[in-house]
């Protein structure tokens, strides 16, 4: 038994990642009475969910009683340019309200309406004010609530523990291999079911709102054991990230600024979004500034402001304005709330934006406009899962949250990710626990498999390479930013694939200094493996989809193509090569399809 030499833990369910989805999955799994472990790369409560600002979308109908799950479902599907997995979008819209109320039952305190209910705010692509929120720190409220609820549930938490590979017995996933950041020692988890909740991939881009953790680990782990990834070409660039000073470039500016009345302007002071209303949304979007401004208070008489078109539309419009030479001094556009709301309202509704600009950019957002530009924010694509159970295509493997694909189609609406986390986090925990209960007692982990992974991890210490992991990472970010950014074309994507091959080869020569104890250089060297894998998947999928849809924009194919509207691009590992194929979308039943006809 060679696996004896590694610290080994045995559980029914392990959850990898402790953001909103991971915490919710772990809570649910342990509530089902199975032994559950929660494994996270950072300290508990630091996951990327804390950075979510604007709110959690749920058709509670507290502000607009007309709102219901059908309207939310329709908004989500249209925002995703009809490429979403309809069943996921349906479950999401149906279950989100209950999940929000559940957070309140666990101690969350959302902002209130005058009659004491949960207040909801406007956001891009949502027909009604729908986002339950806490100022502009909703993600913090959510993760803290889940964390404080989870600590009393007997879940074992492994903090600062990074998983590098999943383990398999035959065809099914049966555990994970990782290391403790603190000591650099390896650790093996044997588990009947594995839930991936590792979040996104944004750290492969240079300008990003994502933290160091977002290296696509879950995508790469699933890919590594042969699971399907879908929709990888859809990477959301949030239209409003900070652009100045350089060191904070990419830090998120919440869509709540626009939800609360802020408006985008170019260097000439024009509200340019009125010039970028696409045909697809024309019927539901305001045409004049007066109508747009009226919409904030009266949604029946007025149509939605184009400032709150879905994120893909707004990001493209900003890029076009900058390209046309109407950008702000530091290469963004202006986001103005100072001239539209009084200082007290701004500080009350957007405290952390106020704080962030004041402290990091010397800008007082109650007096001056912000400078903003697109920043890599969210991966719509991810592990292909069964809508109801979140099961991946590899038995024993489940995925929820950003790492899972399908829910958001070609573009995610703001606010839908926090609700996605809790709706599908809960489902992942539930069905992983059920799967674990049905699974036979014990299994063996192949010792040779473990030894090979460990050797691979330790290579950067031993080989006589000449590459610095930080330099390789920087070059990867440059490559993805320039060649696989918001606007793409075939030539650049092919060039990106060539560069990625070179980077892959350079990664093989990375050498790290020091020892295994808390060594970020070494950690990065291992994360590079994940980032290179997902980068390649994104580039290949983007090359395959020869149309423009949602977050995926091709200069050489600028229109939506109905034939591509019927397929997902699927990436999977075949042998040691990455295969790309087109597979048909699941078909929506007629009663749901009717929702889209009625509204025309």
């Amino acid at each position: 038994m060679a696996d004896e030499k590694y610290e080994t833990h045995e559980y029914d369910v392990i959850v990898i990642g402790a953001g909103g989805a991971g915490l919710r999955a772990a809570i649910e799994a342990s509530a089902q009475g199975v032994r559950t472990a929660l494994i996270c790369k950072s300290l508990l409560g630091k996951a990327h969910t804390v950075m979510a600002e604007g709110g959690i979308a749920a058709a509670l109908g507290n502000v607009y009683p007309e709102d219901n799950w059908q309207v939310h479902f329709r908004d989500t599907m249209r925002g995703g340019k009809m490429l979403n997995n309809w069943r996921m979008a349906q479950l999401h819209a149906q279950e989100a309200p209950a999940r929000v109320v559940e957070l309140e039952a666990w101690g969350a305190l959302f902002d209130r309406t005058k009659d004491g209910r949960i207040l909801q705010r406007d956001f891009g692509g949502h027909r009604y004010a729908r986002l339950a929120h806490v100022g502009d720190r909703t993600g913090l409220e959510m993760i803290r609530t889940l964390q404080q609820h989870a600590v009393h549930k007997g879940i074992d938490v492994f903090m600062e523990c990074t998983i590098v590979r999943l383990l398999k017995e035959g065809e099914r996933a049966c555990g994970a291999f990782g290391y403790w950041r603190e000591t650099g020692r390896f650790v093996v988890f044997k588990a009947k079911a594995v839930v991936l909740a590792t979040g996104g991939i944004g750290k492969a881009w240079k300008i990003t709102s994502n933290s160091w953790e977002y290296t696509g680990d879950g995508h790469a782990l699933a890919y590594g054991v042969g699971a399907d990834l879908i929709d990888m070409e859809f990477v959301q660039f949030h239209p409003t990230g900070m652009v100045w000073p350089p060191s904070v470039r990419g830090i998120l500016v919440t869509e709540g600024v626009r939800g609360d009345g802020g408006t985008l302007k170019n260097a000439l002071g024009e509200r340019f979004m009125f010039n970028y209303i696409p045909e697809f949304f024309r019927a539901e979007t305001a045409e004049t500034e007066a109508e747009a401004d009226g919409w904030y208070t009266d949604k029946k008489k007025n149509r939605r402001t184009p400032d709150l078109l879905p994120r893909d539309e707004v990001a493209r419009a900003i890029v076009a304005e900058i390209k046309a030479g109407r950008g702000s001094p530091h290469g963004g556009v202006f986001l103005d709330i100072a001239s539209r709301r009084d200082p007290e309202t701004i500080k009350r509704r957007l405290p952390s934006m106020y704080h962030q600009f004041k402290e990091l950019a010397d800008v007082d957002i109650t007096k001056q406009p912000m400078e903003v530009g697109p920043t890599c924010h969210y991966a719509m694509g991810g592990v292909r899962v069964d809508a109801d159970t979140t099961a991946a295509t590899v038995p024993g493997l489940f995925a929820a949250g950003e790492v899972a694909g399908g829910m958001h189609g070609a573009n995610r609406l703001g606010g839908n990710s926090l609700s996605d986390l809790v709706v599908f986090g809960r489902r992942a925990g539930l069905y992983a626990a059920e799967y674990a209960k049905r699974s036979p007692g014990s299994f063996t982990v192949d010792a040779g498999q473990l030894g090979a992974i460990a050797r691979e991890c330790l290579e950067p210490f031993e080989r006589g390479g000449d590459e610095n992991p930080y330099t390789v990472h920087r070059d990867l970010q440059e490559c993805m930013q320039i060649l696989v950014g918001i606007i793409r074309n075939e030539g650049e994507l092919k060039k990106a694939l060539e560069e990625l091959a070179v980077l892959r080869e350079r990664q093989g020569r990375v050498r790290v200094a020091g020892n295994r104890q808390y060594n970020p250089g070494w950690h990065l060297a291992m994360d590079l493996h994940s980032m290179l894998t997902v980068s390649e998947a994104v580039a290949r999928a983007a090359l395959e989809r020869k149309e423009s849809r949602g977050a995926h924009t091709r200069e050489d194919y600028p229109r939506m193509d109905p034939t591509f509207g019927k397929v997902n691009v699927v990436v999977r590992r075949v042998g040691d090569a990455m295969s790309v194929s087109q597979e048909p979308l699941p078909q929506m039943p007629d009663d749901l399809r009717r929702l889209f006809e009625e509204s025309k």
Partner: protein
Amino acid sequence: MADVTVRVWRGNAQGGAFHEYRVPVEEGMVVLDVLHRIQAIHANDLALRWNCKAGKCGSCGAEVNGHPRLTCMTRMNIFTPGETITVAPMKTFPIIKDLVTDVSFNFQVAKKIPAFQSRPPDAPDGSWRMMQEDIDRVQEFRKCIECFLCQNVCHVIRDHEGKKQHFAGPRFFVRLAELEMHPLDTGTRTGLVKEFAGIGLCNITKCCTEVCPEHIRITDNAIIPLKERVVDEHYDPVVWLLRKVLGKR
């Protein structure tokens, strides 16, 4: 822009020393950017924690020129040009490596605080009714990003290691105040605040409030109101007498 000289404490539980580095600084940079540059250029293995780099996750606390701060929110332009900047790990927690400390004390305390327990729902649909004025006070506490700078600066545990057994620290007074004043919570925790959390050890010298990056008024709004609630239950002689005379409560 010019180069800056930074002294970074490097070492582990066995000991360590300040290492001096020179790195170029550009407009708008924060201390964390400087540390990242050191990591990328001079010392790939420089250990530090960070996540969001926007003051929202509370991972990157350290002592910059002796002041506990989030390095991601400490702009380089607050220092006089040419000044050597010293960055050391948080002092109250055991060193793991370089700027990374073992903050598990905080997670242990968190585990010992009894969970939130809500009253039954107010409406048939399972929801509650709360007014904004009911929650304003508690929302301030829930801004806490758990950076643990308040725990680090609090002299009760910073200078008196043994008190860690008897004292929860400012972060958890904020948490306890949050539960105490939560409009839905039904638990009473004044006994816990006095005994387990050891609020009497706090001498309200307010350093926790001074270092809080979220500007939570920890002392005035959380600790002192808790002290007053403890007085209600345990120290007020008139209340005590009334209880004796009228029977319990």
